[in-house]
């Protein structure tokens, strides 16, 4: 197994820049290469990139592969269209935070009975529907999430109190009368919410 290839594999898999020390860390102590060896491997990899569509560059926190900017007009078209649909897990998480805020991730998981992926929390935060208000002073110091003004704005609410009260929610008939089973099909979680975050889950 070649040093260069192990480093290449690590850089491709990492999803974030890796420092020389981090790259050394993928080797067991007994055959850990020194900094120069890692450096040399990176140099070689950089040279191999010359004719390819990607480059291996150094940024503040280390090295990473990136697509050469000359290709961005094409590659960018991958993301042009199609907003994806949010999955069930995301909607439930949002609902629980809205009704039970301030809530920790653990509390959301407790109510849902399954793990909540980091991706979902991140998506909600990026959308600015949910923010961290602080950390609970219990072991692990979990973040406390609340909904934001933007959340209220998006749903045309003045205050949270305009959401149906919990007690009556169960009695409200929200379900459209027709096609109940088709709806269930549509609610199947949509692609991609979870894939990246695989590792965060614990098995059941």
């Amino acid at each position, binding site marked *: 197994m070649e040093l260069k290839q192990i480093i290449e594999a690590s850089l491709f898999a990492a999803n974030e820049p890796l420092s020389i020390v981090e790259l050394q860390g993928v080797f067991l102590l007994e055959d850990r290469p020194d900094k120069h060896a890692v450096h040399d491997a990176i140099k070689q990899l950089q040279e191999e990139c010359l004719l390819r569509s990607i480059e291996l560059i150094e940024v503040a926190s280390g090295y990473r592969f990136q697509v050469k900017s000359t290709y961005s007009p094409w590659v960018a078209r991958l993301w042009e269209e199609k907003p994806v649909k949010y999955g069930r897990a995301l909607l439930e998480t949002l609902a629980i935070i*809205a009704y039970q805020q301030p809530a920790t991730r653990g509390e959301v998981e407790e109510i849902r009975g399954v793990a909540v992926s980091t991706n979902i929390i991140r998506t909600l935060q990026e959308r600015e529907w949910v923010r961290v*208000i602080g950390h609970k002073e219990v072991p692990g110091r979990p973040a406390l999430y609340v909904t934001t003004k933007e959340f209220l704005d998006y749903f045309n609410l003045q205050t949270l109190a305009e959401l149906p009260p919990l007690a009556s929610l169960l009695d409200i008939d929200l379900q459209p009368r027709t096609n109940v089973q088709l709806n269930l099909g549509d609610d199947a979680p949509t692609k991609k919410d979870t894939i990246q975050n695989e590792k965060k889950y614990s098995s059941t």
Partner: protein
Amino acid sequence: MDNTIDNVLPIQQSLALVEGKPYKDLPDDLYIPPDALEVFLETFEGPLDLLLYLIKHQNLDILDIPVLKITQQYIEYIELMQNLRMELAAEYLVMAAMLAEIKSKMLLPKKVDELDDEEDPRAELIRRLQEYERFKRAADDIDAMPRLYRDNYLATADLIVCKINKPVPDVELNAILLAFQDVLRRAEKFSHHQIQREPLSVRERMSTILLVLGDSAQEFLGFHSFFTVEEGKGGAVVTFLAILELSKEGLIDIIQGEPMSDVWLKPIID
């Protein structure tokens, strides 16, 4: 537990495996940690799994199970579990009954003319055992297949220049309410998840209070600063309920110098 040991002794085959060695008898002075057998039982995925284990372990032919022997062993396991007052899934008991039925059928003398059209009473059990075994193997096969984030990792390279503004999905409020209805229904079924029913105005106020406390440069803020005169009595009541709830959840400290004086709040979060 001591009087149960006697009932337990007649187990014939291995009672347990210790470092690979089957133990056939329980020494009189043996202390059984209360959860040891539970762990043992938990390693079985149900009665079929336990039966398969008993069969494989003794190199028995699955197509010609000695029903008497297996039934006896199985029932001894079950009795052992019950004597130790472990909670047994109902399926284990159903299987015990089924085995007992097969056993009794096989002991019953048959009239000659019945033999042709009545199948071996074991057939159904054997069919199920085989069926289960093949999927058990399939599960192992699937587990052994290379999969993402264990054996393979996506090879990606960032595209820096323009991370095109990706349109975000639209969501209707109804979709969220529906999702929450589902959560509630589920939670009601498993009623140990107690979902509290504070009015939302209280929940909202709780968030606001935490927000203001977090942003404030001062260590303490007065109770009165969390509602306005325009809100009237309602505002004061909601705020009061909110600080009680926050205090109950261990998120703030409530401090009052002396009776009837101002109430001060201090966040425990940061």
